[in-house]
C-alpha cells in the first residue's frame, strides 16, 4: 500500500522536483510508523457474550458487511451499491451489451468491473469482465470477449460495490475522525465535542422529516450533510458534489444497518449466551458442554439462520419504508400567517398541561424547565447518573433554548413542524403528530419562531407575546 501511495504521489508531483523530494521524505516517515489497517470494532455488549457467541457475531458481520477496506456489497440491503445496475438489453454479444438501467449512481468509466447477478455468467466470477468504453449508442464494451454471451434480461451490476468504496474513502476523509470507523462516534476528535457526534449503530437519526415511527430518509441525511447542524460541531459540507454526498449517505446507511444487525444479534444472544447468563445456567444445574452443544446446534442448521434473516428483513423494511412518500410528514394545511392571534394560540399550547413543553423548555423558553435539573429515568427504568435529560445514546442533552434562534434541524417552517410532528428521534422530545391537529402545530411553530424576537421584561409573566408582524412593518417603514 505504501508503495502505491508513493507511486501516486510521484505521479501527482511529476515535474516538480521539490514536491517529489517532500513526498519521498513523507513516505520514509510513513514506512517507519508501520501499517495500520482500519477495522470495524464491536459494540459495548459484545464483550459480555460467551466466546463462541462472540465469534458467531463477528463472523456473521464480516461475512455480510466485510471490513472497512473490503466492504461486502450485500444485495439484501436497500442501499445503492453499484455504479450502475440493470438488466441486459437487446442483442447482447460477447464484446458488448446494452443495459436497461434500474439505477445509475456513478458515471460508468473504463476499468470498472462487470458482475453478473443472474444468468449463465453468474458462475464465472473468477473471470471478471472489465469495461473498456461506452459507445455512442450507450452499449457497454468489454476489454476481452465474454466467456459466453449473456441472455437478454440477465441482471448485471457495473462497478459492483463502487458506491460503497467511493463512500468509504470520502467518509474516511470527512467524517471518520468524529463518527468513527464503525460509525460508533468514537473517532479521535469525538471526545472533545459537546454535543457528542451521532452514533449511527442504532439506525436512529435525530433530525428527520419522516413520521415518528420511521427511520430517516435519504433526503434528511442529505440536508444535514449539506447544511450541517447549527449549534453543534457538525459543519456544513456544501461544496461536496451530488455524487460525493450520495456516496457518503449510502456508506452511512451501510454503517447504520451493520450497527443495527450487530445490536440485534448482541441483544438476542445476550439473553441466553452472555457470560453472566451461562454462569447462571451452570449454577442452575446445566453443564457448560450442554449449553455449547445447544448453541452449536442452533447456529449450525438450527433456527439461528432464520432468526438472522428475520432480523435483517425487519431492519431492511424500516429503511425502505422511510424513503416511501407515506413516511414523509406533509402538513394537512399550509402554514397560516404569523398573526398575533396565531402566536397567542401557539403560546397557550406551549404552556398547556397537554403538551407540557414547559417541563423541559421552561416558561420563558430558555431551555430551563424543571426536567432539565430533575433526576430522570432511563429506558430500563433506572435513575440516570446526573440530573437532567438523557438521550438513547446515554448522553446528557439540554432542552433547546428557543430564544437563541438556532434551529439544529433547520429553520424552515416545515423543519419545525416536522420536529413537533415526529419528535426528535432518540431524545426525550416527544412526537405530537396525531395528538394535535396540523393547524394547532402551525400555531405552535409560529409561536416558536416568534420567541427570539419577543421583548420580555422581568415580571411580565404570561402576558401576551408581542407579535412579530409588527416588527416587520416597523422595519419596512423605517
Amino acid at each position: 500500500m505504501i508503495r502505491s501511495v508513493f507511486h501516486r504521489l510521484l505521479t501527482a508531483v511529476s515535474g516538480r522536483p521539490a514536491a517529489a523530494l517532500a513526498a519521498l521524505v513523507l513516505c520514509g516517515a510513513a514506512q517507519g510508523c508501520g501499517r495500520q489497517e482500519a477495522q470495524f470494532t464491536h459494540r459495548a455488549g459484545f464483550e459480555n457474550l460467551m466466546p463462541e457467541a462472540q465469534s458467531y457475531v463477528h463472523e456473521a458481520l464480516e461475512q455480510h458487511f466485510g471490513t472497512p477496506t473490503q466492504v461486502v456489497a450485500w444485495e439484501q440491503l436497500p442501499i445503492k451499491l453499484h455504479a450502475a445496475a440493470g438488466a441486459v438489453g437487446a442483442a447482447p454479444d460477447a464484446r458488448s451489451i446494452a443495459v436497461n438501467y434500474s439505477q445509475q449512481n456513478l458515471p460508468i468509466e473504463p476499468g470498472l468491473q462487470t458482475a453478473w447477478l443472474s444468468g449463465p455468467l453468474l458462475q464465472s466470477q473468477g473471470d471478471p469482465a472489465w469495461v473498456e468504453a461506452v459507445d455512442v449508442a450507450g452499449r457497454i464494451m468489454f476489454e476481452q470477449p465474454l466467456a459466453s454471451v449473456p441472455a437478454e434480461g440477465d441482471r448485471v451490476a457495473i462497478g459492483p460495490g463502487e458506491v460503497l468504496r467511493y463512500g468509504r474513502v470520502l467518509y474516511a476523509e470527512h467524517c471518520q475522525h468524529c463518527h468513527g470507523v464503525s460509525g460508533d462516534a468514537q473517532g479521535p476528535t469525538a471526545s472533545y465535542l459537546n454535543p457528542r457526534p451521532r452514533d449511527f449503530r442504532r439506525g436512529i437519526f435525530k433530525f428527520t422529516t419522516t413520521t415518528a415511527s420511521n427511520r430517516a430518509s435519504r433526503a434528511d441525511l442529505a440536508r444535514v450533510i449539506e447544511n450541517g447542524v447549527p449549534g453543534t460541531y457538525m459543519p456544513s459540507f456544501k461544496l461536496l458534489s451530488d455524487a460525493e454526498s450520495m456516496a457518503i449517505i449510502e456508506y452511512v446507511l451501510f454503517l447504520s444497518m451493520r450497527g443495527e444487525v450487530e445490536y440485534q444479534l448482541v441483544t438476542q444472544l445476550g439473553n441466553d449466551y452472555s457470560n453472566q447468563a451461562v454462569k447462571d445456567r451452570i449454577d442452575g444445574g446445566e453443564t457448560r458442554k450442554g449449553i455449547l452443544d445447544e448453541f452449536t446446534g442452533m447456529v449450525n442448521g438450527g433456527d439461528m439462520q432464520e432468526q438472522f434473516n428475520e432480523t435483517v428483513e425487519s431492519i431492511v423494511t424500516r429503511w425502505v419504508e422511510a424513503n416511501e412518500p407515506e413516511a414523509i410528514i406533509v402538513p394537512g394545511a399550509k402554514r397560516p400567517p404569523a398573526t398575533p392571534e396565531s402566536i397567542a394560540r401557539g403560546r397557550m399550547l406551549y404552556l398547556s398541561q397537554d403538551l407540557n413543553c414547559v417541563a423541559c423548555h421552561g416558561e420563558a423558553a430558555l431551555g430551563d424547565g424543571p426536567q432539565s435539573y430533575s433526576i430522570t429515568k432511563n429506558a430500563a427504568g433506572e435513575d440516570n447518573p446526573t440530573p437532567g435529560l438523557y438521550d438513547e445514546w446515554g448522553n446528557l442533552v439540554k432542552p433547546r433554548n428557543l430564544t437563541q434562534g438556532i434551529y439544529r434541524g433547520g429553520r424552515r417552517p416545515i423543519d419545525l413542524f416536522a420536529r413537533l410532528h415526529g419528535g426528535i428521534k432518540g431524545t426525550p422530545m416527544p412526537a405530537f403528530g396525531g395528538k394535535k391537529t396540523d393547524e394547532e402545530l402551525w400555531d405552535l411553530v409560529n409561536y416558536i419562531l416568534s420567541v427570539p424576537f419577543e421583548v420580555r421584561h422581568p415580571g411580565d409573566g404570561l402576558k401576551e407575546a408581542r407579535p412579530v408582524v409588527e416588527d416587520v412593518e416597523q422595519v419596512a417603514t423605517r
Partner: protein
Amino acid sequence: MKKFWIALFMLVPILALWSCYVAPERGWWFPGTTGPYGGEAASPMGRRIDDLFYMILAITTVTFIGTQLALGYVLWTGARRGDAGSGEKAWFSHGSHNLEVIWSIVPAGILLFIALYQMDVVAAIRFKSEFPEQVQNRPLAEVTARQFEWRIRYPGFDANGNLLPLMADPQPTDLYAVNDLRLPAAQPVMINLRTDDVQHAFFLPELRVKQDAVPGLTIPVWFEADRADEFTLLCAELCGWGHYKMRARFVALREPDFLQYLRDLQAQQDYDGVPDAADEE
C-alpha cells in the same frame, strides 16, 4: 576546494532567482496563476495590493542581487588572499563611521519609502472612513465564522419586496445561508465579519482579501469582484482541528441575479412542506 565552496554558496542565490523566475508559469505564484486570468487579482484593490507586492519584490531583488554579489566578491578576494604565496592584506573596516552611516541610512530610507508608499492602500482596506462612499454603513451580509463553517445572514425583503437594510441584531425577515456567500459583482460591497468562537480569518485569495475575525468584534470588510464568477473562500487562521474543513465559496453575481438569489433563498426558507397546487400540475 575554496572555489568549490564559493561556487556552492553562489548557487543558493542563483536557485532563488531561478525559482522566482519560473514561479508564475509553474503555478507557484498568486492564486489562479494557471487559470484563465493568469494570476491577476479579481478586484481593483487586489491589483493595487499586487502592485505593492511587485514593487517590494523589485526592491528586494535588487538588494538581494547586490548583497549576494558583494558576498561573492568578499569570498573570492578572501580565498585569493589565503592562497599560498599571496602577499595581499585584508582591509580592516571595523568601526568605520562612514560605512555604519551608509548601511543605516540606506535601508531606513527604503523602509520609510515603503511605509509611506503603501499607506493609502492600507487605509482604503482597513479604515472605515476611507471605504468607498456607497458601502459605508451599508453591509449586505453578516458573515459569522464558527468551528468549522461560515454562517451567513442576509437582510430580507419588506412587505413590498424591497431589500431591507442589514440590522446588527437578527430580524424575523433575515435570510440565512451557510458556506455560500453571494454578493453583487462589479461594485464595492461590504460585509460584517464576526466569529462565534475562536479567531478565524476571512480569506478570498483571488480577490486578495484577508481579514481576521476576532471574538467580540464586528469587523467591516469591503471588496469588489470584477466579474460575476465563483471564487474560493477559506479560513486563513489555524482555528482548530477542523480548520481544513472551512472551505466555502464566494459567488459574485450580477445585481439582478443577486436579488433573485435572495428571493429564492426566501422561498426555500419559507417552505412549509405543502406542495403548491401549481407545482403539481
